[in-house]
């Protein structure tokens, strides 16, 4: 399916990441957003509030993030593609409903423009401290998909991808921006509507609401369509009815996991360069990948053999490729605007095959390229 032309602002724009994310959502068919103001994400919903009545969309500003994070799910069950947008402290409040979306298999997108925490932290300077929260923040075991853009152009492109993945797997998708990417203004090319692929909602008039297909993903029905659907956050059977047994819990939770695990290779996305023959690989994401690029150029000028991998999907983690890289290089350098969250994941997958150097930053700014360079030099030794 292609994007609806009335939602696509085709042309070349000079806009920031927040605006590009909003345009990506509209192009992806988002016709509902619920929000609550918090910097540095607010520009996304400010723009959506202005654009929504022009594209057949609805925006509502709720009384808090607890509300916003479930209002959008109500809209999804009425037939909308929907998203909400927040930053750090608001993301914490939204944790209440990320697992509800996972449990009820409600396709929707949560955008987190990360700022420095913990707590109110440094409003509203950049960080990447919510990466693990995106995966584990809600209670219970549930699968998550998270994407991480590093430019305004990607804020547009990957927001569309986030909606598509949400629909394809009937799962909440976290869109993990950071303050720098959100507020950075660059050229953004928005293609023609017929060049934008949209994954339609998986629908079936006969299947039960939680009766999985071959890929373990069930199709959806909406309220008001005459199916008498029932949706609950309780452990449920394929009809959607509470089924409070250990066996049912095991079956449901494992299927939720397996539907994403099964597709992990397909979902995993990254770009990489010069891994073959490298002594050191730099694995990074978001704004940090752009600082790392400078460090890599500097290292190469010094004659070091450095490759790089930039994560586009963070969850599910591109495990196979990171394992392979760990067998090819001597050292993996992981710079990030936190005290080593993704570095832990890399370390787990390297499993001793490569040394992992975590280049930390508590947030509020970005690394100096020299910090990363130093780690590359150390890793090459």
């Amino acid at each position, binding site marked *: 399916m292609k994007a609806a032309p009335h939602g696509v602002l085709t042309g070349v724009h000079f806009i920031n990441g927040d605006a590009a994310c909003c345009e990506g959502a509209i192009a992806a068919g988002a016709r509902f957003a619920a929000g609550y103001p918090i910097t540095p994400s607010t520009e996304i919903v400010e723009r959506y509030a202005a654009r929504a*009545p022009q594209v057949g969309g609805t925006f*509502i500003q709720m*009384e*808090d993030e607890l509300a916003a994070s479930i209002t959008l799910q109500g809209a999804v069950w*009425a037939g909308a593609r929907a998203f909400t947008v927040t930053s750090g402290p608001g993301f914490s409040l939204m944790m209440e409903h990320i697992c509800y979306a996972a449990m009820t298999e409600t396709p929707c997108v949560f955008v987190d423009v990360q700022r420095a925490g913990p707590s109110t932290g440094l409003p509203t300077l950049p960080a990447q401290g919510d990466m693990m929260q995106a995966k584990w923040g809600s209670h219970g075991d549930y699968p998550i998909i998270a994407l991480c853009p590093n430019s305004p152009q990607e804020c547009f492109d990957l927001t569309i991808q986030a909606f598509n993945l949400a629909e394809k797997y009937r799962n909440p998708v976290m869109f993990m921006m950071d303050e720098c990417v959100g507020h950075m203004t660059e050229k953004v090319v928005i293609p023609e509507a017929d060049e934008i692929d949209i994954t339609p909602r998986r629908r079936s008039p006969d299947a039960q609401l939680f009766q999985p297909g071959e890929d373990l993903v069930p199709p959806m029905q909406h309220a008001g369509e005459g199916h008498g659907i029932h949706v*609950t956050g309780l452990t449920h059977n394929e009809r959607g009815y509470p089924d409070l047994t250990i066996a049912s819990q095991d079956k449901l939770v494992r299927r939720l996991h397996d539907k994403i695990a099964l597709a992990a290779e397909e979902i995993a996305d990254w770009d990489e360069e010069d891994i073959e023959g490298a002594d050191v690989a730099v694995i990074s994401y978001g704004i940090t990948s752009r600082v790392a690029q400078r460090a890599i150029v500097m290292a190469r000028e010094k004659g070091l053999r450095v490759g790089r991998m930039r994560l586009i999907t963070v969850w599910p983690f591109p495990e196979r490729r990171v394992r392979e890289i760990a067998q090819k290089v001597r050292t993996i350098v992981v710079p990030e605007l936190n005290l080593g969250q993704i570095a832990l994941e890399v370390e787990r997958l390297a499993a001793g095959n490569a040394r992992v150097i975590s280049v930390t930053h508590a947030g509020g700014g970005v690394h100096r390229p020299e910090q990363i360079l130093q780690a590359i030099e150390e890793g090459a030794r």
Partner: protein
Amino acid sequence: MAAVANPVEQFLRSERIPHIWCPGCGIGTTVNAFARAVIDSGLDPLKVVVVSGIGCSGRVAGYVSFDSFHTTHGRAIPFATGLKLANPELTVVVYSGDGDLSAIGGNHLIHSARRNLDIKVICVNNLVYAMTGGQSAPTTPETANTSTSPYGSFEPDLNLPKLLDAAGASYVARWTTYHVKQMERAMLELLRKKGFGFLEVVSQCPTLYQRRNGMGDGLESVKFYKEHSKVKNDACLDDLAMDKIGEIICGRFVDRDRPEYGQTMREFYQNKLGAKYRAPEFQDGVLV
């Protein structure tokens, strides 16, 4: 075999009955009134959606055959807000308990009444947190004994009708599980009223409230409501606070016409944006 069916039956997920509610619990009684009101209203039941939060009353969603959503604790109203805004054709009913709606969900209750979005809230008020074992709620009358006020409650309780009036609800009424006929009529009024409506049904929780307070079983509770309630449609809202053994004032307290949120929003944008406005449109059940 009877030639007619119980009117409630067509709206039950019969395979899930018997329900989990205790003997003499009032929640099922409210469902009887609701079913009859839906019939009286002439609404298409396939367009009626029931949204509940968490708690004993929150289980209503699981027993009625309407499209139904059992959401999270306190958040039935925001979920309903998304449903109603995305598809204004739906009649969206929030069916939940006092703790769910007025404590953890209190903020949403206030702001939804303020917006006056067309949502119909049925608040089954059993004066206590029942599902979790009978703890104090904001609605627990002073002096009542609960599992977290073992020496009696000393907190003032929340006067729900007064709160809803101040916040701007279009319709506010209160009845008890004794008043089955009035409850049915109030639910009908609620279903017909455009805007945010709120019906409080004072309902017994014999297992955890009445018994602990020496007020007997379900039957005794309904008799108590019969004896202690007073119908005052024009009551001064200040007088509606409930104490443990005093009068329960019932009636329709607010019935006014205010601009409904969804319609106002759409008309507002249409006027502001003129030709640039684009109305929401469904294609194959999905908004495009």
